[in-house]
């Protein structure tokens, strides 16, 4: 059947929520980096090895790549339709007074996140999968050292922190917006999902932001 605006938005909502779910798992895994250095090295490398070997994780990772691509591609299609729908521009425009900045700029925030993801994939995902990594004492690839070394650079920490702030604002609107697209209209639960969205976005953003800062200030070798 013909794809309507609502079907496009459904793709955005479902892929977005799957990515939201993934972020929780990703953050929980990364929190292992906060353990004492020697324990953290062993544990984190073991965890990375576990993820790369498990068939179930492999299937989920393909869903993840697909979700990422679909989310970005559909965002582009939607933006194009929206620009066309606007017609001529207002000469004097103060419409921004009645809505939040992040709700109007999900595309810009998403682009920042996409650029971040390209760097992130190149520096860790690609290196882990295709690079020649030294092994740790247990014989697992030593991703821990790569992570710790990269966060010795101040600019790299700042790049990550800024990306996480963009992510935070993206999540703040995206999480609630997805619930609306999926059809949540009951007043009580609409309010509840806003609160959950706030807690979720704050937890994810602050959690991810903590790790590079912790490494930079505590594990300076």
């Amino acid at each position, binding site marked *: 059947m013909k794809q309507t605006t609502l079907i496009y938005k459904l793709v955005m909502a479902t892929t977005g929520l799957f990515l939201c779910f993934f972020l929780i798992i990703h953050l929980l895994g990364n929190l292992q980096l906060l353990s004492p250095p020697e324990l953290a090295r062993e544990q984190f490398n073991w965890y990375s090895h576990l993820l790369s070997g498990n068939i179930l994780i492999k299937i989920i990772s393909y869903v993840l790549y697909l979700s990422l691509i679909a989310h970005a591609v559909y965002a582009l299609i939607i933006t194009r339709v929206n620009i066309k*729908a606007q*017609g001529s521009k207002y000469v004097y425009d*103060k419409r921004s007074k*009645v809505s939040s900045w992040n709700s109007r700029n999900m595309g810009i925030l998403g682009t920042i996140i996409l650029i971040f993801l390209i760097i992130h994939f190149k520096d860790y995902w690609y290196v882990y999968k295709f690079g020649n990594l030294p092994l740790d004492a247990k014989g697992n690839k030593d991703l821990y050292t790569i992570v710790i070394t990269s966060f010795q650079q101040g600019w790299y920490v700042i790049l990550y922190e800024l990306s996480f702030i963009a992510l935070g604002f993206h999540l703040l609107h995206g999480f609630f917006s997805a619930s609306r697209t*999926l059809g949540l*209209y009951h007043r009580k639960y609409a309010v509840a999902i806003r609160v959950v969205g706030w807690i979720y976005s704050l937890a994810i953003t602050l959690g991810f932001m903590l790790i590079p800062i912790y490494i930079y200030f505590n594990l300076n070798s």
Partner: protein
Amino acid sequence: MKLYLKIWRQEHRESKGDMVSYEVEGISEQMSFLEMLDLLNERLIKKGERVIEFDHDCREGICGACGMMINGRAHGPLSGTTTCQLHMRSFKDGETVYIEPFRAAAFPVLRDLKIDRSAFDHIIQSGGYVSASTGQAPESNSILIAHDTAEAAFDAAACIGCGACVATCKNSSAALFTSAKISHLVLLPQGKLESADRVIKMVGQMDAEGFGHCSNTEACEVECPQEISVLHIGRMNYEYNKALALRK
């Protein structure tokens, strides 16, 4: 009071418009915004110039005919107000006021501040009705409707179709308008029967008219003269998803 107006003048649909400056003296604070424009038009007529054309009808905030962007906001600086219910006491003496038509690809400018909103009519024609012969008014207790339900349906039905939701939306989405109509009918037993078919048709027509996606910025609810809730958009999405899932 005296105002410096910058008003969009456009000859016809295809021509290129422009902002034209006017100085208007002797404005009373009690005047409505449309009466202020009437005052300016009277003076333009006396000077032999073409009047500024704008839509208006009831001038009591219930018809939805009037509507323009005033200082960059739909229906002006107040929330929950039509242009005719906006009074000059909301402006300061000597202020510059920008007046433009509502803009959207689906709402072409006909002349000056007048736009073609028939895209809304097409959405209603596509499914915003109950297709049963109504006959005489039935006995009032033959179909029982709870008070809360009747009130909720009426809140949605209060939409006057002015188009401020589209005008203020960064994507020119008609989601609030369409969803208000869908909510209104689905809440009532007579309308519920055809809800699946209706939502598919009306959303399809909304897209065909060239309106954009809803980004849930919720600006529409703020500018809506009837303060129609954005939760209706959630209900429309729910009805649409349900119709997609259960359609044969």
